[in-house]
């Protein structure tokens, strides 16, 4: 599979490394060339410096032949917009955006045809589960 990851922060770089380790072809986009340091020296994929909402930058990363696009920059709106561009203009069948805000995550998943990952909801579920499994949880109100 050919995958483009936008945003090379903690999440983006880990996703890129893991997918590359699984044998996928990966290209990573970030505005800051220094961010690619997180990928390590042995990263086999491609780097592109630029804004992920810029169509020319997306083309340079090979979006015209991409199977999947994962947006994990630090901005919810940037992730939504570049995933929309990937899906609508470049017809990437699987365009995913990380969106911290649960309301926007649901809206764009339900009505705009992209997939969203909401870390806030994941954290909320895990937190509640963790509290429920505390030793004192059986005590009730």
């Amino acid at each position: 599979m050919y995958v483009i990851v936008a945003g090379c922060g903690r999440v983006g770089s880990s996703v890129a490394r893991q997918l590359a380790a699984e044998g996928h072809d990966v290209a990573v986009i970030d505005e800051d060339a220094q961010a690619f340091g997180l990928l390590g020296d042995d990263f086999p994929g491609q780097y592109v410096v630029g804004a992920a909402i810029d169509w020319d930058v997306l083309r340079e990363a090979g979006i015209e032949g991409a199977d999947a696009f994962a947006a994990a920059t630090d901005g919810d709106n940037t992730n939504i917009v570049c995933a929309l561009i990937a899906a609508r203009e470049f017809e990437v069948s699987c365009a995913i955006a990380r969106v911290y805000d649960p309301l926007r995550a649901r809206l764009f998943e339900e009505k705009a045809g992209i997939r969203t990952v909401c870390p806030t909801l994941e954290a909320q579920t895990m937190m509640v589960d963790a509290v429920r499994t505390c030793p004192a949880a059986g005590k009730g109100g």
Partner: protein
Amino acid sequence: MFVVIVGAGKVGLNVTRSLTRLGHEAIVIEQRRSRYDLLLPELGERMLFGDGTEIWVLEKAGIGRADLVVAVTGDDEDNVVISQVARLQYNVPKVVARVNNPRNQATFDLLGVDATVCAATMLMSMIQHELPVHQFVPLLSLRRENVELVEIAVTDETPAAHTAVRDIRLPAGVLVAAILRGGTALLAHGDEVLLPGDQVLCLLEPGKEKALIRSFLPSRKPEDVQAGTSADPGDR
């Protein structure tokens, strides 16, 4: 009319003031605390503090009953998202958005934000209009209405030169609206005659630019004449 404006920068503030003066109900959302504090004495309840890309903030502003949403923040991603939320979630009848970087115009078009304003592109059009070297200048584009206003030069090689407007053979989808001569505009009545050195204002359907250029400037390549006239790639 009830209008929700996002972004109380120079543009948003003046839109809010003008709409209020015209008797409309307007509320502007601003997320920078210092800007909010500065404008609060003037705007009072017509301003709301918060991130206007957050759905709960938009709801607090009353987006559900808005007749128009104006997205004029300094961030194109935010303006796209505001436009999309207004349309997808609240079926707001009209959305106007500001394009900060002309490179992003295509994204607004792609996502169906049909009323966009790009200061950089408009400024470039006005500069080209003032500079004699440009023989073709796109002046205004009304996307939703499917009509454009452009300016084109009449030269010695223009077949329509020395011809009255009513006798000019124009490509389909093109209409001559006015003739600019000696610093003034003449409405293009049928008996006005085009002269070399004139600039002609034409109304046309989108996509007719090349046909127009070929009919006025037959020896020039349309691509060369148009070069640098559309939303020009700015800095990344």
